[in-house]
C-alpha cells in the first residue's frame, strides 16, 4: 500500500461525496423542517403521511450514498504492519458512528412511522415530528455528508502520515490503528450493539407519541399501542445493552468505563422502561394509569438525555472531549507531509 496514493484516493472520495451530500443535507434539512411544520399545523396535518414518505425517501437516498462511501472507504483503508509490510485487514466503518448516529435514528423513526398500522392516522403527526426534528438535527448538527466520519478519517490520515514518515512513529500509529480496527470498527459487537440500540430508540419514539395521545385523549387503545412499541423497543434495548457488556469488558480493560456517564444513563433508561412494563400490569388499578404515563414520559426524556450524554459527559463511550470537525483539517495538514514523503 502506498500511503500517498491511498491518501489521494480518500481525499477524492470525500470530495466526490461532498457536493452531492451537501445538496442532500440541505434537502433533508428543508424536508425535515417542513415535516415539523406539517406535524404542528392542524390545517395541513392531513399531508403528514405523504410528508413522512418524502422524508423517508430522502433519508434512504442519503443512506445509500453513505453506504457507498463506506464501501469505498473499506476498499481503501488497509492497515499494514510497517515492519513486515503485511496487511492485517481493511477498516470496516459501520453506518452508525460519529456524524451518522442522529441520521440513522431519524431514518429508523421515518421507516417505522411508515410501517405503523394501529392508529396510524393519529400517530402519524407525532412520528413525522420526531423524524423531522431528528432529520434536521442529523443533517445540520452532525453533517454526515459535508463532514464525514471526522474521527476515523483523522486517525487514518494520521496513520498514513506516520507510515510515510516510517520509523518508530509508524509502529506506534499502526498499533493504534490496528487496535481501533480490531476492537472498534471491525468488532462484531459494533455491528450489532449500536444498531439494536438505535432500533429501540426508534420504536420508543413511536411509543412516546402514543403515550402522549393516551394522556391527551384518555383512550386505552393508545396505551396498548404505546405498550406494543415499547415492548419492541425494550427487547432490542435489552439485547443491545447485554451485547455491549462483554465487548466493554474485553476492549476497555483497565479503562474507566464502569459507572461512567453514558453507562449510568443507559442503566437508568433500562430500569425505567423495566419499571414502566411492570407498572402497567396494574393499569386497571385506581389511578395507576397516571403513574404509568408519568414513568413512560420520564423514561423517554431519559432516553433523550442518554443520547445527549454521549456528547456532554466525558467517558469511554463519549465524544465529549473529541475534536469534532478535525478530519478535513487533518487531511489538509497531512497533505504536505505525505506529498513530501512520497516525492
Amino acid at each position: 500500500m502506498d500511503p500517498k496514493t491511498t491518501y489521494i484516493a480518500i481525499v477524492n472520495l470525500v470530495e466526490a461525496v461532498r457536493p452531492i451530500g451537501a445538496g442532500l443535507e440541505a434537502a433533508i434539512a428543508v424536508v425535515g423542517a417542513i415535516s415539523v411544520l406539517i406535524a404542528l399545523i392542524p390545517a395541513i396535518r392531513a399531508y403528514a403521511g405523504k410528508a413522512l414518505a418524502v422524508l423517508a425517501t430522502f433519508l434512504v437516498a442519503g443512506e445509500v450514498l453513505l453506504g457507498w462511501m463506506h464501501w469505498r472507504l473499506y476498499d481503501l483503508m488497509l492497515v499494514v504492519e510497517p515492519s513486515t509490510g503485511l496487511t492485517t485487514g481493511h477498516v470496516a466503518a459501520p453506518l452508525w458512528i460519529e456524524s451518522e448516529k442522529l441520521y440513522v435514528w431519524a431514518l429508523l423513526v421515518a421507516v417505522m412511522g411508515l410501517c405503523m398500522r394501529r392508529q396510524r392516522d393519529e400517530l402519524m403527526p407525532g412520528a413525522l415530528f420526531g423524524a423531522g426534528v431528528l432529520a434536521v438535527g442529523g443533517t445540520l448538527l452532525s453533517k454526515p455528508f459535508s463532514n464525514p466520519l471526522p474521527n476515523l478519517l483523522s486517525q487514518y490520515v494520521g496513520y498514513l502520515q506516520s507510515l510515510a514518515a516510517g520509523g518508530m512513529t509508524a509502529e506506534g500509529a499502526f498499533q493504534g490503528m490496528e487496535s481501533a480496527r480490531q476492537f472498534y470498527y471491525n468488532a462484531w459487537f459494533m455491528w450489532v450493539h449500536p444498531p439494536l440500540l438505535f432500533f429501540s430508540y426508534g420504536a420508543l419514539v413511536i411509543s412516546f407519541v402514543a403515550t402522549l395521545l393516551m394522556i391527551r385523549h384518555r383512550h386505552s387503545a393508545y396505551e396498548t399501542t404505546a405498550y406494543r412499541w415499547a415492548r419492541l423497543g425494550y427487547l432490542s434495548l435489552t439485547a443491545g445493552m447485554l451485547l455491549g457488556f462483554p465487548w466493554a469488558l474485553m476492549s476497555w480493560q483497565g479503562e474507566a468505563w464502569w459507572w461512567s456517564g453514558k453507562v449510568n444513563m443507559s442503566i437508568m433508561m433500562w430500569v425505567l422502561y423495566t419499571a414502566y412494563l411492570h407498572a402497567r400490569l396494574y393499569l386497571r388499578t385506581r389511578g395507576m394509569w397516571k403513574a404509568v404515563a408519568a414513568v413512560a414520559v420520564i423514561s423517554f426524556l431519559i432516553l433523550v438525555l442518554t443520547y445527549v450524554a454521549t456528547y456532554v459527559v466525558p467517558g469511554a463511550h463519549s465524544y465529549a472531549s473529541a475534536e469534532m470537525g478535525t478530519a478535513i483539517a487533518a487531511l489538509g495538514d497531512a497533505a504536505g507531509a505525505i506529498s513530501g514523503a512520497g516525492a
Partner: protein
Amino acid sequence: MSTIEEIRQRVWDFWLTIVTVAVLAALGVQSFIGTGYVWWAQRAIPEWEAGPGYAAYVELMNLIAAPLVLVLVLVMGLCVPKRLFSRRALILVSGAMVAAGMIAWAVTGKLETGLAIYLSLAAIIQVAVVVLTVAGVRGPSYLTEGRLTKTGSGLLHLGFVLFGIVVVALQRSSWMMPVFSAAAIFSLVGTVLAFYASRLAWHRSTPREETAFEWSDEPDYPESPKSVSENPDSNGSM
C-alpha cells in the same frame, strides 16, 4: 381460594410490583446522580479517571447498588414462582437465601462473595421455576400462551440473575463468556416469550386488543392482572 384470600393475594402481588418499581426507580436515581457526579468530577478533578477518585467512586456506586439489586432479586424470588409454591414457603426460602448470603459476606469479609452466593441460590430457584413451569406443574395441561408467558417470565428473570452473577463475580473469570451467553440467551428468549406468547402459542385464543382501565380516581382495591389468556398484552413478568 376464599374471597378474602383472593383480595390478600392481590394486595400482596400489587405491593410486590410497587416495591419492584420503587427499587428500579431508586437504581435510576442512583445512576442519574452518578452521571452528574462523573460530569462534575471530570471537570473539577484533574486526571480523575486515572486517580484514586474513580476507584472510590466505583466502590461507592457498587455498594449502593448491591442492596438494591438484592431487594430486586428478593422480590423476584417472591413474585415469579408464586403460582408454583405457597407464599409461606417462598418467604422462608427467600429469608434463608438472604441469611446464607449474609453469612458468606461475614465469613469472607467480601460483599461480592455474599452477593454471589445469594444470586447463585436465586439462580437455582429460578431454574426450578422454569423446569416446573415447562412441566406444567399446577399449570395448564396443554401448551397455551399462558404457559409460554410464564416460561418466558421465568427465563428472563433467570437470565437477569445470571447476568448479576457475571457482574458480581465472573468479570475476570474464564466462565464469564459461557455464563454471560446463557444469561443473554435466557433473557432474550424469555422476553420474546413473555411479550409475544399469544403469537407463538400452539393453541391460540383470540387476543383482546386493549387493557381496559378506569380513567377516574374512584376508590378500588388493588387488582392483579387477569390471567394471560384474558389479557394477552400483559408481559406476565409479575
